[in-house]
């Protein structure tokens, strides 16, 4: 039986662009180019490697997001994923992590899965908790923040490098995995991959298809509320000196004046 891998990815505003908030305090997506979150490329890469090791595997890449989020799916398909699922619905606008994870969980279940793979965090929201929430919602083991991962005989194994210790983890499938940027450089799509991706199936789903009511998602259905967002005031210009042989001593003088020495 084929190993069914679902990779959850996010379409995010480019971190090198001038990101800001829209009037309703959601992430502004109009003025900054979007792309597949860099940290999700590592998830796609590990899915591809696990599939290459397995006798028979199928990789579905899944996203919840606006029309343009198809770009993120195409990128993952061009890297080598087999098919894609795009959950898109106007009512989703402004969904927080609880609302988004509800949609992802239902879509993962509808797709069918043995292994869900996520990146360690998105590059816009940066919470890093969605994989754990997904495992809770799906009722399957959480094997997260892995720098190394492998799947064999229905068991997922991996190394989790924490602040105080490095742990070897093990769980039975089905399971939810997340991988870090230490898990291995993501491949670039080949020309052949890019051409092939154009023909790969992308299924579109709406909330109705997942039996989710509009009031469970979006700004209204979210369980958190952003009251204000303010641009951080620019730091006041500091003193900059050119080292003429005394730069280290001048810096020590500054640190002393600030009571750090």
């Amino acid at each position, binding site marked *: 039986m084929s190993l069914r891998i679902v990779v959850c990815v996010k379409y995010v505003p480019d*971190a*090198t662009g001038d*990101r*800001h*908030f829209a009037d309703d305090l959601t992430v502004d997506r109009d003025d900054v180019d979007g792309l597949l979150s860099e940290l999700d490329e590592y998830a796609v890469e590990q899915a591809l490697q696990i599939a290459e090791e397995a006798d028979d595997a199928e990789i579905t890449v899944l996203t919840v997001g606006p029309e343009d989020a198809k770009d993120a799916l195409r990128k993952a398909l061009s890297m080598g994923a087999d098919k894609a699922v795009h959950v898109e619905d106007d009512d989703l606008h402004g969904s*927080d*992590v*609880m609302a988004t*994870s509800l949609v992802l969980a239902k879509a993962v279940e509808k797709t069918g899965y043995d292994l869900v793979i996520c990146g*360690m965090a998105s590059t*816009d929201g*940066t*919470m*890093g*908790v969605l994989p*754990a*929430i997904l495992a*809770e*919602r799906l*009722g*399957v083991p*959480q*094997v*997260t923040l892995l720098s190394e991962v492998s799947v064999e005989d229905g068991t997922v194994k991996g190394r*989790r*490098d924490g*602040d*105080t*210790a*490095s*742990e070897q*983890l*093990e*769980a*039975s499938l089905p*399971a939810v995995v997340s991988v870090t940027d230490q898990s291995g450089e993501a491949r670039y799509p080949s020309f052949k991959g890019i051409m092939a991706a154009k023909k790969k199936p992308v299924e579109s789903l709406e909330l109705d298809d997942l039996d989710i009511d509009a009031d469970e998602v979006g700004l209204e259905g979210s*369980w*958190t*509320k*952003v*009251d204000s*967002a*303010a641009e*951080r005031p620019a*730091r006041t210009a*500091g*003193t*900059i*000196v*050119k*080292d003429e042989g*005394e*730069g*280290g*001593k001048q*810096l020590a003088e*500054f640190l002393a004046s*600030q009571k*750090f*020495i």
Partner: protein
Amino acid sequence: MAEVLVYVDHVDGAVRKPTLELLTLARRIGEPVAVALGAGAEATAATLAEHGAVKVLTADAPEFADYLVVPKVDALQAAHEAVSPAAVLVPSSAEGKEIAARLAVRIGSGIITDAVDLEAGDEGPVATQSAFAASFTTKSRVSKGTPVITVKPNSAPVEAAPAAGAVEALSVSFSEKATGTKVVSRTPRESTGRPELTEAAIVVSGGRGVNGAENFSIIEDLADSLGAAVGASRAAVDAGWYPHTNQVGQTGKSVSPQLYIASGISGAIQHRAGMQTSKTIVAINKDAEAPIFDLVDYGVVGDLFQVVPQLTEEIKSRKG
């Protein structure tokens, strides 16, 4: 007065500093009730009491060490049921965030992660967060259920506030899912003797300009002269010059020390995301156009191999 649950991060009974900062914030909203789990849980009580914990709920079982995250979620959920708190505060470590998030799903509550400040509000606690590589500051609150909020290290001062700190055993029955992910082995990190990166008052970081693993001793010497932690940019880590656990930036640690010294770091957005909220920023870089100089309180344009050792010597002689 309403009670506020505070999840305790400790190593064999030694309470880590971010938990004491959480007690300071918890006292702004209500009476802190601490939850300490695993080996040494009861030994945390004295320290927690000194910093304002009215009660310390403790539980120990092999499951806490042998299985990932879920046993701790089961225990925190039991504490939530026992106390019915006004909020649940958890340190923003990787594990802390996962515990908090799963608890929030179970109790039907919203979650806010990586708060850098917390105050009482008419509609519940208001959390301040940094967004988009710390270029924005947002104020948010949980609008459903018991607010579950994780707080970053260095977000509040540690304050003495003696309270009873009465130890009570917390009764935990583990869920069927608790043993889903087995921790097969655990290798503790070797201690460098330096402060923890995210908790340190001073961080000294090196980047591409350090130009080799062997040269990082210059950065370490400066750090040691100041009692600081050592950080590294992604470029330095990707080059294999310094361990990933020391990486500062979007995909590494996010730090907010009193003083941040960047040596040979250009200041790309990925790095700024992890250090922009530092109180005082100092940089040494040979490129006068490096974006890091837009952030600094004091910058030296020069060769770090000249400037840094001179700075280290000067600090040592001033400290005598």
